[in-house]
């Protein structure tokens, strides 16, 4: 038996509340960072990084993280070439979302950056080359901007950042002669791509 139901009107004038997803309060992320930084003057760096954050307001998150990696040569086969970079950082970031899928991220960290690089310098008079070692320690401010995309728990994150030295101290040793130098300004730039888990 067929039944036909007629509903003349459904008047829904009252806003219907919807239980949205629970706003996350914490996150941890692992990422790879690709870029270049002092003191590696002849290569790019590749770092693994871990960071975590805690939501402090609707918009702002406190965050901290570490990174460590090696350098690869600038020309040639892009293989490790004797450089190291380390980074310890903490700061705040604002996260502003369009729905739940895409969020924009902007923030700034303060941190300590340490790097070393050993290379062999060749010249017309020194055919075997001379070993030159450079190390660099800097107190940096790191502005960053990026976005994350994904679901309620797992999100992919991409950000770019520039490490700007507020205080920097570098040493260079060549043929057992050590010189020191200091500078301020942009001493690194990175693209970070990773995955975050939030809850």
């Amino acid at each position: 038996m067929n039944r036909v139901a007629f509903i003349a009107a459904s008047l829904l004038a009252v806003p219907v509340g919807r239980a949205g997803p629970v706003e996350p309060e914490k996150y941890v992320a692992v990422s790879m960072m690709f870029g270049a930084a002092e003191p590696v003057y002849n290569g790019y760096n590749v770092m693994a990084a871990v960071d975590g954050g805690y939501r402090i307001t609707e918009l702002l998150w406190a965050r901290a993280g570490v990174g460590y990696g090696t350098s690869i040569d600038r020309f040639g086969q892009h293989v490790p070439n004797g450089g190291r970079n380390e980074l310890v950082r903490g700061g705040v970031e604002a996260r502003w979302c369009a729905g739940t899928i895409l969020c924009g991220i902007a923030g700034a960290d303060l941190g300590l950056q340490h790097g070393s690089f050993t290379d062999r310098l060749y010249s017309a008079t020194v055919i075997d080359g001379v070993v030159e070692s450079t190390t660099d320690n800097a107190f940096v401010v790191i502005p960053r901007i990026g976005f994350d995309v994904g679901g309620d728990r797992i999100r992919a994150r991409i950000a770019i950042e520039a490490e700007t030295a507020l205080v920097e101290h570098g040493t260079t040793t060549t043929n057992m002669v050590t010189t020191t130098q200091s500078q301020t300004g942009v001493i690194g730039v990175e693209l970070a791509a990773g995955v975050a888990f939030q809850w």
Partner: protein
Amino acid sequence: MVKLALALVLVSLVSGSVARAEPTTDSADPDTALRLSIIGSAFPIAAIGIGTLVGIEGARAPIRDVGTVFAVGGALIGIVTPAIGDFYARRWLSPGIAMRAGGLIVEYIGLVKAFSNDIGDCADPGPCHRSAATIGLIAGGAALYLGGVVLDVVGAPAAAREWNARHDVQLVPTAFKTQSSTAPGLALALKF
């Protein structure tokens, strides 16, 4: 006995507030479209800005290299990403994309002139200078590019509203509880 019951909903008067509170999967939220376009614009513009700064001020050649890659990559990505609010609103062809692509070509020509043709002027005695045409190309390209960004950001909510207006009448599946069972049916929904 045929248990299938055809349920015809003649009119479902859904107020605007309900539509905003719980949009259907086919509707586009203008605010979300605006936010998507803003985020899609901010990232490439920041990449261009940071990349240019690092490309000029970087302490080492590799740092400047990476900065330049960020600037160029940001400019290329930015042809598309400011339009993601439009894409969300199912408007796949945005005039802003054409403006940004055109602006980038003009900018490229201006930069090539600035770094190749005009650089000869700097070898002459007296201050270096760029020709008016070069400055015009660089400024015009940037203006066209940024204009395309603004166009897409401003136009994204309108695109969402346009999509919703075109899809006011919807025939959607539903279910009804009958005396003996739950019956599938169709509902005709009108939004106004």
